[in-house]
């Protein structure tokens, strides 16, 4: 490959644009220390036209579309002393070489600072957001869900090991109220096979966790918050690969690379991943028992035997970047596949054998971004995706099994049948196909440096069909279909005032949802019974609004305030009911509404001594949910048809606070400590007789409400080899005990958990190869996210990372 084509451009698309109708030129430069070594990752900035570039590892940079004339160029990096120089652009291509003075700080430290600057930019915008950087974590054997779980205010509740079912709790809100996005696109577009379970951190640039108040570019009916995973886009012309192996036969591999031809702008990005685990970790304790033929318990220690998980996927995007007609234009294909065995249901007391799901997804996408479109300051973006998702749930094994994976034998010597015909319920081989289209378009217009309007519109439609091969043919013909269409428009106004001290973002969102129900029915026509279709549509519209503001009080102290009237649209079951689950329809059901408020601050860094400093973040929050959709309780249980609708009856309130302290010493020792405590309370005060409920303002059961996480890191430089780095870390996670029912008895209380991990990684001098080792849950404690579901015990993992930049 031609090396002269390879220059990294970290420049943000907003600032990179072409003046199509005026004469412009290109600057190609090199930054060098006075000893001749290249200055990598320095920012080159022309302030008059707001053009940025970053130098690559060889110190090279490129700035395009610079109007003819004289310009002042500013070069900055922690490695160098600040340097300004002027250049004259009088021809299409100008070459320049700059010598710079070395500063005191090291090269590695600078990489970290660069990574955090993007993080702090998002975190300072006023939203209650934390940004999880995956750069360092991707070197070790972490799962994406591990990273989220260590983050402040996020609780990931997983039903076992790698690949198992996951739910996310953000500041006390969970389930349907939390939406997950990948690059701003709802994760349902990609399907189960391309989920946070399967995407390795190495493919992720960063994860943004928005709590309660969600910016317009993630417009969706996310009542409680949103998790947005940003996949890697950054560096061009590189290749990275990693391979890891560990306990429970866990294997993970991923590779990603990109190429850009700097003449034509042609760009290709590709990545692939493979995950596998037997998840055959040991479980024990009061929930792990074999039931003998006479019904007595035999408590056992056993390995999980029906819990293997495999996922694989690939993503390729090809197009043009930083060309005259587009900042980004990509056509892409994403394919993924997974296989997931299911060991048990809600509780691990009854082991399953032979229940599994398989899913595949094919996603075709088109992406277009252009800044200064038609006029200066107007950026447009468009993203379209068509996805074909297939899923099969397979459960046909009729017998009971014990924790040793053996058939349970009854008193009469025969194997015992499962009470409902198969492991979890009735026998099923249910094929569920979904066709999902998502189109998002948006425009951003900068009136001036200080004022900006953002508009975004999302269209989402899903057609779902299912076919259960275990149902008779005539029954299959009478399964209805449900098609959902959502349109969400959002408009925001952003202002940066008072010498950039005050930032505000005011927004409104308008939601439209239509669900079409089609149920086949039999009608009599001319004395003959024929199949017909019963169609009903439900249309719901609603609006929400909010704001996010930040104010810089003094140097390093930023106050953050955000609030939103957030909504969640009712789901198809909540509207149309589900005869199989005895739910009847309620076409008139309204969306759930929640008033969410966050108030907090970010402060620091404060210099303690010349070598140590710390930063603090703290935030309080309130989630006041009304019209919560709950199942109606029918007092007349003996009614002929025992069915009930969903209603807008519930009210809950979640109030709490969270905080984070980050301490660093000498650039090679750091401690991160965060905690989150909240009360999700029952919020209906009076019964119909005017008496106050005892639960009023009481903590809802089955919610972990107090968690602490900490990460301690220590780095050695040049310990074994020159220019090598050895990093050690120690992590602990604490979850306080909580009751799982209103009945506060010890049997329904989870244990207090204190899980500790240690690990190290070694960066070889070339910085191409990194080797890491992790020991998780070092004391083999029983770990639980969900009541009566044990997570993996002690595990050891080894990982190799290899990357080539510049080829």
């Amino acid at each position: 490959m031609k090396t002269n084509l390879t220059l990294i451009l970290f420049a943000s698309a907003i600032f990179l644009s072409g003046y199509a109708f005026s004469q412009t030129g290109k600057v190609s430069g090199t930054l060098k220390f006075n000893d001749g070594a290249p200055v990598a990752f320095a920012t080159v900035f022309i302030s008059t036209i707001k053009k940025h570039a970053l130098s690559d590892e060889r110190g090279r940079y490129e700035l395009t579309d610079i109007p003819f004339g004289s310009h002042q160029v500013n070069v900055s990096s922690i490695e160098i002393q600040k340097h300004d120089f002027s250049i004259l652009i009088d021809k299409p291509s100008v070459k320049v070489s700059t010598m710079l003075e070395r500063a005191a700080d090291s090269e590695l430290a600078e990489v970290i600072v660069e990574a955090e600057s993007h993080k702090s930019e998002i975190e300072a915008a006023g939203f209650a957001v934390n940004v999880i950087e995956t750069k360092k974590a991707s070197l070790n054997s972490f799962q994406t869900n591990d990273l989220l779980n260590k983050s402040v205010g996020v609780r990931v509740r997983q039903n076992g090991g790698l690949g198992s079912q996951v739910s996310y709790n953000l500041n006390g809100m969970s389930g349907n109220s939390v939406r997950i996005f990948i690059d701003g696109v709802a994760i349902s577009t990609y399907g189960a096979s391309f989920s946070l379970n399967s995407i390795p951190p190495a493919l992720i640039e960063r994860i943004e966790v928005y709590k309660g108040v969600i910016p317009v570019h993630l417009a969706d009916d996310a009542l409680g918050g949103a998790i947005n995973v940003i996949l890697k886009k950054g560096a061009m012309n590189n290749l990275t690969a990693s391979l890891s192996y560990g306990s429970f036969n866990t294997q993970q591999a991923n590779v990603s690379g990109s190429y850009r031809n700097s003449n034509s702008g042609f760009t290709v990005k590709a990545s692939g991943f493979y995950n596998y685990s037997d998840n055959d970790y040991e479980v024990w304790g009061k929930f792990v028992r074999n039931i003998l033929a006479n019904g007595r318990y035999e408590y056992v220690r056993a390995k999980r035997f029906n819990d293997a998980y495999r996922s694989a996927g690939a993503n390729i995007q090809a197009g043009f970047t930083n060309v005259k007609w587009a900042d980004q234009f990509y056509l892409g294909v994403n394919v993924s596949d997974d296989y997931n065995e299911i060991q048990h249901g809600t509780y691990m007391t009854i082991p399953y054998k032979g229940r599994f799901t398989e899913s595949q997804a094919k996603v075709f996408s088109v992406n277009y971004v252009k800044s200064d479109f038609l006029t200066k300051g107007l950026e447009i973006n468009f993203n379209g995706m068509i996805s074909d998702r297939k899923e099969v749930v397979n459960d046909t094994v009729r017998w009971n099994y014990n924790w040793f994976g053996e058939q349970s034998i009854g008193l009469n010597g025969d194997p015992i049948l499962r009470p409902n015909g198969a492991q979890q319920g009735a026998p099923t081989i249910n094929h569920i196909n979904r066709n999902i289209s998502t189109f998002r378009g948006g425009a951003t217009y900068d009136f001036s440096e200080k004022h900006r309007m953002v508009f975004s519109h999302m269209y989402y439609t899903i057609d779902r069909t299912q076919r259960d091969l275990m149902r008779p043919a005539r029954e299959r013909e009478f399964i209805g279909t449900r098609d959902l269409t959502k349109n969400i428009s959002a408009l925001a106004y952003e202002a940066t005032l008072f010498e950039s001290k005050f930032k505000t973002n005011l927004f409104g969102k308008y939601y439209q949802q239509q669900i079409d129900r089609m149920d086949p029915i039999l009608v009599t026509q001319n004395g003959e019974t024929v199949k017909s279709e019963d169609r009903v549509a439900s249309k719901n519209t609603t609006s929400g609004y909010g704001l996010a503001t930040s104010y810089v009080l003094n140097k390093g102290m930023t106050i953050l305030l955000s609030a939103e009237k957030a909504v969640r649209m009712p789901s198809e079951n909540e509207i149309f009911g589900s005869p199989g689950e005895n739910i009847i329809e309620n076409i008139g059901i309204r969306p759930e509404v929640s008033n969410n408020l966050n108030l907090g601050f970010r402060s620091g860094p404060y210099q303690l001594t010349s070598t140590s400093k710390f930063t603090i973040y703290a935030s309080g929050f309130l989630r006041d949910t009304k019209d919560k959709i709950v199942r109606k309780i029918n007092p007349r249980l003996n009614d002929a048809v025992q069915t009930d609708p969903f209603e807008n009856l519930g009210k809950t309130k979640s109030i709490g606070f969270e905080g984070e302290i980050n301490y660093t010493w000498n650039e090679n020792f750091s401690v991160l400590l965060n905690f989150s405590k909240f009360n999700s309370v029952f919020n209906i005060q009076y019964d119909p007789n005017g008496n106050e409920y005892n639960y009023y303002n009481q903590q809802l059961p089955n919610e972990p409400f107090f968690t602490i996480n900490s990460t301690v890191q220590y780095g050695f430089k040049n310990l074994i080899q020159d220019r090598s780095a050895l990093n050690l870390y120690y992590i602990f996670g604490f979850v306080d005990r909580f009751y799982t029912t209103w009945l506060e008895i010890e049997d329904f209380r989870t244990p207090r958990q204190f899980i500790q991990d240690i690990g190290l990684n070694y960066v070889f001098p070339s910085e191409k190869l990194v080797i890491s080792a992790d020991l998780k849950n070092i004391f083999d404690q029983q770990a639980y996210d969900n009541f009566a579901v044990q997570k993996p015990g002690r595990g050891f993992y080894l990982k190799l990372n290899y990357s080539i930049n510049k080829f």
Partner: protein
Amino acid sequence: MKKQFLNFLTLGALMSTVALSSCSDNGGDPITPPVETEDRFITVAGALMGTNPGDGNGGTMVYSVTKEEAKDPDTQISVYTEGFGVKSNRTARLQSSEDGSTLFNIAYTGDNGGEFSRYTVIGGGNFVQSDVSVNISQYAGTSPRWLKLYDGDKTGIALNMANITANNAPTEADPNPLTPFEYYRGVATILALDLEESLIRNYVQYEIPLTEEEEAAGHTIFRLDGSVLNAAEDKLIIGTWMRKYNVATGETEGDYERLGTKSVVVDYPSFANPTVITSTVAHGDNSGYRSHYSYLGDDNNIYQATERDPAGSHILKINQNNEYDNSYVFSLNDALGLTGVTIEAWQYAQNGKAFALISHDGAENGFVVWMDLNAKTASIVDLPYDPDLEFNQYQGFVVDGTDVYMAFTPVGKNGNIYILDSNTGLASKGATLVNQPGNHYIGIF
């Protein structure tokens, strides 16, 4: 406080309903008056709300008082503040020993669903759980339906009907069967639980066919519950909840012409030879809900209530040949002069006298009805009825001599224990039951 129990005397009192009843003629006065216990515990159970008022899904608490205390309106019982939590995620399925000294529970759903446990009643909020637990979920699921037989606290019967499918449903072996449709059937499980030893004594699993014609129309047994032992103790009579499928679409039908009420009769204790008997009098189900729905009378006949009955609940009679006596017609609609009467729970007392908890068309709340099964008369017992009084989760009465003890609390309001005299149909007020918003008392054990 240590209590002395005359266990076999109390046991004898209840056995009298079985053994001594042969001395009484049909409908006449009993020759031997029913024996009252000298003293016994009266245990009240209350259901905590879960997410919604009155749903009872927050768990169950119990509290015990002496019989004297139970009869005294000055006694204040506050099960929610002073009671003991029974280990069940949802409303417990409680039963008590005939002398009230032991409580039996099978946890309903949750991590311990199907787990049978025994509690010794010490008094007040003190209950001691025996250290042996037995779990029937392998056979009967984690939400089993079960009842104790009136056989001297020896046996509990749990029932389950699983995996109702068409005969020509695809299987893994035969994914595209060409067999024509004949029936929908599930697999029935009948299980005997040894209450003394805390272990499973016996179980059977089989299909229970209806007639060819009934099955061809899509009728099937959807649920089994409400079992009762006959006088000869050689047959178990099991109540049914029927369902009909639309054979053309496979969908469950809501509104259809119901068959005559059916019971399943099996040999006891082997559970072999299941047969189905059908009433021509009533068309409702008779599986009950969380409590006994069929009782062996002093006259050795079985009396069975019906629900979801198009003509309102009936009391049916099954004679000593284990067949419906279709000459016995007792309609609650007719006897009360109301429509849509539904028996939510009922209790046979003695000598053909019984009490039922009913709802009916146009009524907001539930009512207590005194019934004379021999005279086929019924009347509403004079009690302080309240619009929030619901009996849908009611599951326990205590019969002591001619008295029947019941808990009477509207949802979220205080109520009382009432002692109902089965000879007169009169209620006397007992201990006050202190309630909490959204909660209700669900029974006496």
